[in-house]
């Protein structure tokens, strides 16, 4: 609806994966501003800073050293001013059970890490546009679940 860029926060310990994501985002037609952190501790420290621009969506790698994606998810959901940020979890493993448990804990999006760059781009576009709809069209965020 307006020209404000979409703010994305990405937490992943693998440098290749991070570059993969950042490049994919930069090739989308949608204007995004990406902030990258290397693990869960860094993520929580970043979010705890005063006066930062809160992201519209956080992409969280499930398997990170020091603090896992799931631990971050649990913490974020307990913090009043952060709990409404959309959370997209991604992981290489994806059993139906894992996916459902992640949603129950409050994640909005579950992404099975794709192997091809083209698929990743497609997935990111879908997540960003749908999240944008929830942001601008007054949809009920409680019902925002997307599995890719």
């Amino acid at each position, binding site marked *: *609806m*307006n020209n404000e860029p979409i703010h994305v926060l990405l937490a992943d310990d693998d440098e290749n994966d991070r570059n993969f994501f950042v490049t994919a985002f930069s090739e989308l*037609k*949608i204007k995004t501003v990406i902030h990258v952190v290397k693990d869960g501790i860094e993520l929580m420290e970043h979010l705890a800073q005063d006066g930062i621009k809160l992201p519209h969506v956080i992409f969280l790698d499930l398997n990170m050293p020091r603090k896992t994606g799931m631990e971050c998810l649990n913490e974020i959901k307990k913090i009043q001013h952060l709990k409404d940020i959309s959370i997209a979890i991604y992981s290489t493993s994806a059993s*139906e059970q894992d996916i*459902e448990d992640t*949603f*129950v*804990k*409050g994640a909005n999006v*579950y992404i099975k890490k794709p192997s091809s760059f083209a698929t990743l781009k497609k997935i990111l576009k879908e997540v*960003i*546009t*749908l999240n*944008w*709809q929830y942001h*601008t*069209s*007054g*949809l*009920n965020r409680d*019902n925002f*679940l*997307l*599995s*890719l």
Partner: protein
Amino acid sequence: MRIYIKFEINKTCKKILEDQLQKLGLEYSLISFGEVDLKSNITSKQIQEINTGLQNYGIEIIESPKNILIQKIKDTVIEMVYMDEKLPTFKTSTYLAEKLNHRYGYISKMFSEITFTSIENYIILQKIERAKELITITELTFTEIAWQLNFSSMAHFSNQFKSTTGLTPSAFQRIMQRKKENILEEK
């Protein structure tokens, strides 16, 4: 303790609007959802005042004609999808064109340009959102929901739900139920 409430968003917005406009002493009438007719011309300072009063509620005056059109398209789609009775069966492209008084091609192009998505996708998204709401707050069966939202069959509904959310309607229902129990447990 936790209580559950239900609210009518149209009524809420209308009441907030009325309160704010009355507070500023403006004469007005509400035409349709999201459209207000003011009895006299107002200054940009007054527009500013209205916006200031409304911004706490997430309501704002839309000024660019493009954005007004987009908002009207969205409102028309929502009005259609949220009819209490069964969804109408007419062609939505014709309906939108007539209701908004523009060629459908124009409406559709504008919409895609500004919202990053097509009208067709937006309608599907709204229908699926409505389905999610019916799944979580009513006792309707999936077959009944499919019928009410004009899906040709239960299978068609399930497929569309799955392709939009990645989940089957039953998985969605199970997750929402567990989420609710999860929240209750933590209290």
